[in-house]
């Protein structure tokens, strides 16, 4: 990275730093949680090739989370590293959105969640890519190159399930009915968001990113005769309430850390 966060940190006022903290944490936690959820397919995905593909995609998300946590650690500059942010919180301290909170589910659920998340994430990344904060803009430019492929891959799967016969379509519509009401929580308002927008750290408010996301998925939804996701219910709590499924996932992904905080590999 050409601009270090530490050097930029000093030029940020406290309100902007707080807003950036919330933004980075929300993005990193989203990637981290969906990455771990999808890694639950390793070994049992519907076919061998997709097993490798989904595992690789899940690892991409963990990599994105790691890069975002690292940037957050630099921003905070309090001596806690990326691993500490990722693993040393209680479940209630995570700020991922409700869309990715519900656990893996069946294949249709995974594809529906990935489609909704990846397309929404693309719209969010577009707003962040034009950030006036150079370290974030530079990182997001790299993330978008991998996320482009994620959208490509999951879109082909969405189409296969939507047009793939009765059982596939029924399962997909059931998954959509469960997940789509939470899809817009990706854009749930963040504390300090207005400060970020005023300073150009976020190029547009997340609500505008949501509008762009809706426009971007409309052609797919029309072509595949799928319902458009409704607005999020209680968006202000979109990143605060977590399910038992997430608490179970938390016990899984913190197992090693809780056994031995010094463990390295």
């Amino acid at each position, binding site marked *: 990275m050409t601009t270090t966060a530490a050097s930029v940190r000093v030029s940020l006022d406290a309100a902007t730093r707080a807003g950036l903290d919330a933004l980075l944490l929300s993005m990193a936690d989203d990637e981290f949680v969906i990455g771990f959820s999808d890694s*639950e*397919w390793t*070994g*049992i*995905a*519907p*076919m*061998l*090739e*997709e097993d*490798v*593909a989904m595992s*690789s995609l899940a690892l991409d998300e963990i990599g994105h989370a790691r890069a975002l946590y690292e940037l957050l650690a630099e921003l905070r500059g309090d001596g806690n590293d990326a691993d500490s942010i990722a693993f040393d919180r209680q479940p209630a301290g995570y700020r991922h959105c409700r869309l990715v909170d519900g656990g893996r589910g*069946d*294949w249709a659920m995974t594809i529906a969640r990935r489609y909704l998340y990846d397309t929404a994430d693309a719209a969010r990344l577009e707003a962040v890519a034009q950030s006036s904060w150079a370290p974030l803009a530079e990182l997001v430019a790299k993330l978008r190159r991998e996320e482009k*492929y994620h959208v*490509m*891959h999951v879109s*082909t799967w969405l189409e*296969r399930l939507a047009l793939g016969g009765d059982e596939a379509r029924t399962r997909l519509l059931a998954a959509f009915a469960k997940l789509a009401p939470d899809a817009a929580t990706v854009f749930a308002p963040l504390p300090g968001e207005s400060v970020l927008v005023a300073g150009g750290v976020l190029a547009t408010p997340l609500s505008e990113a949501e509008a762009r996301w809706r426009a971007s998925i409309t052609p797919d939804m029309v072509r595949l005769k799928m319902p458009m996701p409704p607005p999020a219910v209680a968006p202000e709590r979109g990143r605060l309430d977590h399910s038992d499924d997430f608490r179970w996932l938390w016990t899984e992904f913190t197992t090693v850390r809780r056994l031995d905080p010094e463990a390295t590999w």
Partner: protein
Amino acid sequence: MTDEAVRDRADAGSDEHAGGEPFEVFRQEKDGGPMVHGGSVVAPDALLALHYAREMFSRRGESVRLWVVRRLDVHELDDLDVLAPPLDRSYRKPGGYVMRDKLAAARERAGTSKPKASSGGRDTTGRKGSKP
């Protein structure tokens, strides 16, 4: 982790190519290099075959270009006997002509030494070739 997904995968495994049909994957390791056969993937269509080829043959950046071809579109010569020459063909190969001693003698007569490999000249004396 014993759940429906495990059974689904096991069921799929009993049915040959349940996930689609085989595609042969060709990859280029660096720009300008040849496309070489890398292996195969099973996929329902060419688009997913390309996605899977990316994951199998380039997720660690091993390839700069990928092709997939339906295995059904690959045609194999069925009479392998025509590939096995029944008679001695060594006379077709440059290796059939041993030039080294003659060349050494000619150089001695001319009073020149053997050119160095780095001089740009290609010394193919005694080299075994495979072209007819």
